[in-house]
């Protein structure tokens, strides 16, 4: 039996426990899905940038991390971190916009690998910057919410997680509304479908790209604020978020919002279960390992139809 390093509990023991106490599964599922909505939010932003500008933003997780720090510093200054959500969105929007105007615009037309490498470099830069400026310590922005008891106290739900879940859904809904109804949103959608045609019709695609990138950063920032309240933040939490977003996008596809949400919730739950079964120290291994598995499975599925992942 595999030892996971958590005292005497092995993987088999954990699985047995799940069957013996089904309420445990409910707890894991619930906790997982609640955080999963936040994953879905970040994933939607990545899908936006990917679909509109054909850029895969490896620094996605770093935007989340920075948003979390905005909320944290608000909290440290005595203001309730909930105000961090809109503030992080605004700050990160401006940040994303400036990043586009300085760096990203140069890699939009190049091949995808250049943009991956550039955003990866950006991710490392931001990580290290955060490490130097904020320190490597783990932080939380206390929201002061309590705990909800369900099923005679057998299942506990931190109220803040519930609030964050709803907030994530609301933010996602607002984003969708914006894209459908507003002029900028329509311009973004037009550019995503055919950039050349959009340009001919008078749309300033450069501005659309800047707005899209900024919007994505804003979404991640807001998600990050939620993360800092429900969980923890530290300079290195970025890459797992990027990988999660990527996984959700390739499973759900670029256009389907409902699928993104479902995939996000599913991933959150799966991660939670994996962390319980294999041990918390393997949870990150699970996330990255799952990426490999998903991509290999998808390639196998496509090659049976003799279409290749391009």
């Amino acid at each position: 039996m595999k030892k996971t390093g958590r005292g005497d509990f092995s993987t088999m023991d954990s699985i047995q426990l799940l069957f013996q106490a089904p309420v445990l599964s409910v707890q894991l599922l619930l906790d997982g899905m609640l955080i999963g909505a936040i994953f879905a939010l970040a994933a939607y932003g990545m899908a936006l940038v990917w679909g509109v500008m054909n850029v895969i933003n490896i620094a996605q997780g770093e935007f989340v991390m920075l948003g979390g720090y905005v909320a944290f510093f608000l909290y440290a200054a005595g203001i309730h971190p909930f105000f961090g959500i809109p503030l992080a969105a605004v700050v990160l929007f401006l940040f994303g916009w400036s990043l586009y105007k300085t760096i990203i615009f140069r890699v939009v037309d190049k091949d995808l690998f250049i943009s991956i490498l550039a955003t990866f470099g950006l991710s490392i830069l931001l990580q290290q910057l955060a490490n130097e400026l904020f320190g490597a310590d783990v932080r939380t922005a206390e929201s002061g919410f309590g705990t909800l008891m369900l099923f005679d106290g057998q299942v506990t739900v931190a109220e803040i997680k519930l609030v964050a879940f709803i907030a994530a859904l609301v933010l996602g809904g607002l984003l969708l509304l914006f894209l459908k109804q507003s002029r900028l949103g329509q311009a973004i959608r037009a550019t995503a479908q055919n950039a050349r045609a959009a340009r001919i019709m008078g749309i300033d695609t450069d501005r659309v790209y800047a707005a899209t990138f900024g919007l994505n950063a804003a979404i991640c920032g807001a998600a990050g604020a939620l993360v800092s309240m429900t969980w923890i933040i530290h300079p290195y939490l970025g890459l797992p978020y990027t990988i999660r977003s990527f996984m959700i996008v390739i499973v759900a596809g670029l256009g389907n919002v409902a699928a993104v949400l479902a995939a996000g919730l599913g991933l959150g739950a799966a991660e939670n279960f994996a962390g319980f079964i294999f041990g918390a120290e393997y949870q990150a291994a699970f996330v990255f390992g799952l990426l490999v598995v998903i991509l290999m499975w998808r390639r196998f599925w496509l090659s049976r139809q003799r279409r290749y992942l391009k």
Partner: protein
Amino acid sequence: MTATVKRLLLYTVIVAVALAAPSIAPDYRTQMAFLWVMIVFALTWDILGGQMGYNSFGNILFFGVGMYVCAVIQRDSSLGYYPALFLGMGAGALAAVIFAAIFGSGILGLRGHYFAICTLGLGIAAGEFASGWDYIGAGSGMVTPIFPGEPGGREKFFYYVMFALAIITFPVLRWLYSGRFGLALNAIRDDEDKAEAMGIHTTRYKTTAWCISAFFLGLTGAVVGNMIGFIDPRDVAFAGPTFGVWMVLMAILGGKGTLWGPVLGAVVFHITQEVFWTYLLGWQRVALGLLIVLIVVFFPLGILGWARERWPERFGHVVEEKLDARATE
């Protein structure tokens, strides 16, 4: 002086300087040994990235595997220091090749950015996995055995071992690139669908290329594990965000897809990095991150790539009319 004589002279000078270096500058032995490490990093990455067009962020997997396998053999075997070390190196290289063959069959079927991100995940997953596995020390890592011999002897010994590894890797790659293997890799890079449509056994070439990278990286890992003395799963063995990224960057900086490009890039990068470490203490990682962005965005062709665009004739791309003998046929 013919081209061959010039080339041999260059090699001789380099080798002579390299052999004398540990005696000339004994304080910098470890840094100089790392120069050879960087050169092997860049050369092995370029096989897949520059010559074949498959940009891997996960080559660090083979480095770490080689490192751990060697360390485990050194820990568990009852052999003397040197036999255990060389056995460990061999086993490490073999293990790395096996990993390449196994993962290669699945992952090398992915194209472009999917391959890049998948290998990224692979490299980091390995580090996370190693951090949890008690048999190899989990988060605390492992230590390699103490070097028998006088103090300072360890740095000198591993300098020469690493140098030997580098000057074996270079001609091996040179030999590969000058034959059909190099042409096939380039064809896969330029248009893989076309290569398949022409009947080329692309899978064979792709997997073999990755196995060759894995082989040299496995050896390097085993050596570096002993050079440093301490193996941390995330920061030393499967150091994706450092070594793993530098591999890519050095090859790009020097000019990917050439033989000397990665070497040049490794030298420039290594020196730059040492300068950053000395003068920008605390901010060196930030500076390095910035450097990555700048190079990728402003200088993606790299030194030799830029040179080739500027002076194509120097690289042999000329219009050559028929020689007279042919005209009379």
